[in-house]
């Protein structure tokens, strides 16, 4: 790597971003120093091991990444809004769709979901934290460092440009000699460590830390989906780890896993990538299903219809999701027999998914539905997601997929599952749990703007893609001629994209407005909800529960309210043990980031030297015997009196 290419130069858009990034960084540092907030940041946030704060940091990072990925999306839709448009050149377009895909799936969807899980799941099961709080902080910081490493690529060294799927041999050294794809291989690897750790952490938390009486089949549905998603993470992420390692070895150390001339096999990448990639789409959609289940039950004022079949179908979906990966490359030389098998397994996924859809509908049936914003997102999810699912079954037919594969039809399909499935869920979840996190609600009126702009924008953007896809437009095309007739559809799609962006802006405005003006007097349970997280204060006390509740049935908080069992007694409160903050997770992750950065630039010696930092981190952690501290019962009692008022 030649140092003169260190910064990306020559494109006014990128120069603008470089200046903007530089100024923002300087501005932030000056501002924080001026406000004397460094100590506070370090002590309250950077070193925190509190699951709620970690969750909030995940959510903030996820929203920022949503913005970044969204800008990529707008750039693409602008470029294709008219035939022969000259806004982005081919290379820049390649980079933008690549970073868009990676950022949206790994750095937007994953952190937003893991963030909400972090905040909510321990509360739902009546726990005081996750099983391994320090590991939880490590998860966040490795994700964050990985995300930042990936994001600097477009100003330092150049972005990856081989698609979020990074197919070999295109993404190999021979056809992508620039370092862009090194960023892909290394940054995803670093972030992946954190995800795996989260998976393990959540499984142990759910299996071992449930409140007394909460049997597995009494857990809230969101907790169930978290458990199953975590199992999928543990089963699928190591495959990505190996695939990325092989890619790094090929690109940086001259190995030949994927180079045909030396006996390598590009199909190995495809198989490994999708062996992780298909489960990954269910890793993100299952927790989303869980959120809808909670929201729909609360605002229909009924318990969830068909709890047991819900659980069964989640497990069924997770199991099947490991058996369908070949449907991503039906067209790449499999025998008809192989394609048929994977066609069938793929279509089978529609069965448990359909069961869930009907369960949600039956939950609402005869319910007294309250059309809050959280509920609106859940209602919109059902028809939109069904369109995505039905087109998925179309794609699942191998013979027909020769027509659809890699067209805009496919692009429309996965946006119709991912956006209603994940993004709507995150919005529903944010509106619903926002008061738990921050002690005030988001404004419902501005929320309606957010909702309608986003829903209209979403459908306008992606619905036309079904038609131009069937008409033969392949995905990832950066330009087209007028004679194709796609112009009007793509213009519509571009307009939709800007409406969608306006919806996002409305959300940001809503956050700002509510932060300034919304009422802080909302109590612990503003929605009259059903599960245990609502038995705590809003925002939640650092120790979560003064007295761990005893659980006798589903929807325990609902039962507690009905039976008048929400009060606590002074003599039940004991000293509460809390884990101490730790600087190790953030420092260790930064060390990983430094070594990763050198590896991206193929400065092997430097990377080797700085690996000492990683080892030092491991040793420091091994010798860390901090046992945490106790909050005295008296102080807990004070805090409880303050928010409950009636004790």
């Amino acid at each position, binding site marked *: 790597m030649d140092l003169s290419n260190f910064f990306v130069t020559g494109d006014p858009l990128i120069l603008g971003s470089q200046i903007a990034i530089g100024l923002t960084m300087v501005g932030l540092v000056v501002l924080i120093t001026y406000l004397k907030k460094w100590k506070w940041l370090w002590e309250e946030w950077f070193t925190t091991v509190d699951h709620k704060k970690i969750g909030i940091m995940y959510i903030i990072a996820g929203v920022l990444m949503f913005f970044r990925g969204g800008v990529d999306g707008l750039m693409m839709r602008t470029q294709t809004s008219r035939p022969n448009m000259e806004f982005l050149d081919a290379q820049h377009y390649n980079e933008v769709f690549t970073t868009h895909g990676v950022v949206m799936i790994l750095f937007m969807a994953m952190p937003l979901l893991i963030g909400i899980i972090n905040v909510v799941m321990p509360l739902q099961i009546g726990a005081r934290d996750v*099983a*391994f709080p320090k590991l939880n902080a490590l998860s966040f910081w490795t994700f964050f460092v990985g995300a930042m490493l990936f994001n600097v690529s477009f100003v330092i060294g150049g972005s990856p440009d081989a698609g979020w799927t990074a197919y070999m041999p295109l993404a190999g050294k021979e056809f992508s000699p620039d370092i862009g794809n090194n960023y892909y291989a290394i940054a995803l690897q670093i972030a992946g460590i954190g995800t*795996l750790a989260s*998976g*393990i*952490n959540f*499984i*142990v938390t759910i*299996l*071992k*830390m449930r409140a007394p009486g909460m049997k597995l089949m009494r857990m809230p549905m969101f907790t169930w989906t978290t458990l199953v998603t975590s199992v999928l993470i*543990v*089963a*699928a*992420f*190591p*495959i990505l*780890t*190996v*695939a990325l*390692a*092989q890619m790094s*070895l*090929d690109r940086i*150390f*001259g*190995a*030949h*896993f994927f*180079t045909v001339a*030396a*006996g*390598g*096999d590009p199909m*190995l990448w495809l198989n*490994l990538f999708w062996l992780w990639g298909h489960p990954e789409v269910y890793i993100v959609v299952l927790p989303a299903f869980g959120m809808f289940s909670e929201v729909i039950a609360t605002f229909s004022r009924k318990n969830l219809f068909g709890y047991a079949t819900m659980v069964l179908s989640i497990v069924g979906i997770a199991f099947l999701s490991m058996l369908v990966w070949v449907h991503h490359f039906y067209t790449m030389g499999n025998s008809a027999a192989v394609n048929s098998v994977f066609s069938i397994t793929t279509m089978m996924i529609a069965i448990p998914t359909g069961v869930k859809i009907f369960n949600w509908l039956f939950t609402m049936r005869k319910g007294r539905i309250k059309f809050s914003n959280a509920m609106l997102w859940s209602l919109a999810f059902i028809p939109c997601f069904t369109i995505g699912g039905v087109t998925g079954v179309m794609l699942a037919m191998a013979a027909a997929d020769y027509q659809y594969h890699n067209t805009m039809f496919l692009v429309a399909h996965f946006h119709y599952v991912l956006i209603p499935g994940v993004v709507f869920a995150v919005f529903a979840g944010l509106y619903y749990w926002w008061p738990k996190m921050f002690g005030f609600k988001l404004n419902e009126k501005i929320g309606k703007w957010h909702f309608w702009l986003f829903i209209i924008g979403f459908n306008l953007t992606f619905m036309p893609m079904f038609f131009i896809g069937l008409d033969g437009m392949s995905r990832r095309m950066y330009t087209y001629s007028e004679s194709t007739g796609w112009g009007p559809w793509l213009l519509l799609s571009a307009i939709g994209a800007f409406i969608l962006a306006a919806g996002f802006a409305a959300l940001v405005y809503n956050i700002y407005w509510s932060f300034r003006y919304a009422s802080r007097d909302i109590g612990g349970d503003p929605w009259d909800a059903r599960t245990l997280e609502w038995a705590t204060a809003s925002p939640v006390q650092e120790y979560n529960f003064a007295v761990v509740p005893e659980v006798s049935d589903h929807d325990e908080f609902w039962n507690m309210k009905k039976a008048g069992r929400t009060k606590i007694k002074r003599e039940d409160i004991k000293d509460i043990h809390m884990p101490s903050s730790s600087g190790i997770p953030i420092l260790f992750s930064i060390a990983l980031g430094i070594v990763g950065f050198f590896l991206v630039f193929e400065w092997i010696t430097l990377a080797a030297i700085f690996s000492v930092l990683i*080892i030092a981190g*491991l*040793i420091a952690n*091994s*010798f860390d*015997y901090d046992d945490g501290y106790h909050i005295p019962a008296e102080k807990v009692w004070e805090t409880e009196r303050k928010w409950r008022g009636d004790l």
Partner: protein
Amino acid sequence: MASHTSTPLEYSTKQNEMNILGFWIFLGAEIVLFSTLFASYAVLEGSTVGGPAQGEIFVLKDVLIETFLLLTSSFTMGLALHQMRDNNKTAMLVWTVITLLLGAGFVYFEINEFIHYVHEGLTMQTNAFGSAFFTLLGTHGLHVSLGIGWVLMLIIQILRRGITAVTARKFFIVSLYWHFLDVVWIFIFTFVYLKGLM
């Protein structure tokens, strides 16, 4: 104290129980990781273009020595754990050090083996077989080396703190890790070496 019928020390606290369960799940992830490496090796083992084939370079004697060292180290690790359960710190540490020496011996012979292959004209850069072979073996060897460092840390901690609930839990976990690597080696021995020599 040293009774074998009550709950062992490493399981004596809730946090310990959770750590051990968490580590078992981590080992599950490790199984997936090594399975993927084995699968990649199975796909690429025939791709020996421009380099020697397995049968031409594998030396059964060296491999048997490595196998012997690692399997024995697993046994001595078990003995160390047994002494830990008996609250016998000195004997525990003696067996642990022996385990470490055997592990280091394994790594030494493995590095020698790799050097031998390089002389025979097989590196990670030679062909796809070389890449898959060195990655699989290298990942295992790296795990063993990390394990050695990890056990060293624990020896220091046990010297300083004695056998407590925390050190016992840490040691139990590292022993699980060690046995796991042993099992992986048995698969390597069978599916890489024996198969390659057939």
